């Protein structure tokens, strides 16, 4: 059995990384949206 602290770290660290990554995505998307014509959704994910 591993410690509770280790298990908590396994939950918190990836979640924090994911949040940080989404903030970076948002910043990139906001920057791109200033430079593209209306109606262009080329940075949208999940489009199959």
């Amino acid at each position, binding site marked *: 059995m591993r410690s509770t602290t280790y298990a908590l770290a*396994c*939950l918190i660290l*990836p979640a924090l990384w*994911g949040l940080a990554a*989404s903030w970076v995505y948002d910043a*990139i998307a906001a920057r791109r949206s200033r430079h593209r014509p209306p109606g262009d959704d080329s940075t949208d994910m999940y*489009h*199959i």
Partner: protein
Amino acid sequence: MTAIPNILLHPVWWIALAAAGLVVGIIGGMFGVGGNFLLIPVLNIVFGVPADVAVGTSLCQIIGTGVAALRRHRRLKQGEIKIDWIMLMGGILGAHAGASLLFELSNRGTTDVLGHATPTAKLVLSVLYVSILSLVAFWMIRDARMRPTGAPLTPGPLTRIRLPPFTWLPHANRRISILVIAYLGLLLGFLSGLVGMGGGVVLMPILIYGVGVRLRMAAGTGILTLVVSAMAGTWAHARMGHVDLRIAMMLLIGSTIGASAGATLTSRMDGQRLRGLFGCLVLVTALAVLWDLMRSLKVV
């Protein structure tokens, strides 16, 4: 704790892990899925990580990619959030049950198949993997051949189950039994805890073909359940010693960069072609897992 190969502790392999995460992230970003269906075989077959640790570690990295995807979909208002809330409790219970079953299978040691001793956990996971992925690949390839991009979806068989109480899905414009969704959450959580997948690769085909939800909406549905069940599964696996946080973080660094690149890569590709490509990729993964199983059984 099941030991990971010592070689993976070398910094060169950490870079290789981040590169693997990057490739999985690109593929996940291209097709709008998490990519765990690909990550677990890669960890197990390419890097030699034991099957149970591969499942626990990839669940841990799902938390990161899932949190980023959840935030994005909530902002874009994509997905039937009602389905998420109904599936949530089943997802948590199922993830814990799946992780506990995997722990039991790991403790069973080996099973004799065709005169060869094979780790029981690997045997069960491989059979489940090949079955689930083959089914998903069949659906996706068939759909890509028969339904052009933008063609209307018919109400799926799950909406025809008359089991009250019912709920209305506003985006899909369909009525569905709450019990059906709750059991779906239990199944997804169970698969998540046991085999480490259940998000994009399993839930999306069920939502699209079983309920009749459009793909863009299906992609945003279930992420909350996925993240919460990944957390429940990670917690259980971490306590059992099946999570290597260093590997998970290296994978996460690569996959978060790759997911953004993958989405940009396919922004102009035809949806029908993408579905076919995705089906082929899932099929190749299923065949790779089957080949690895047969190799360990000395059949090939």
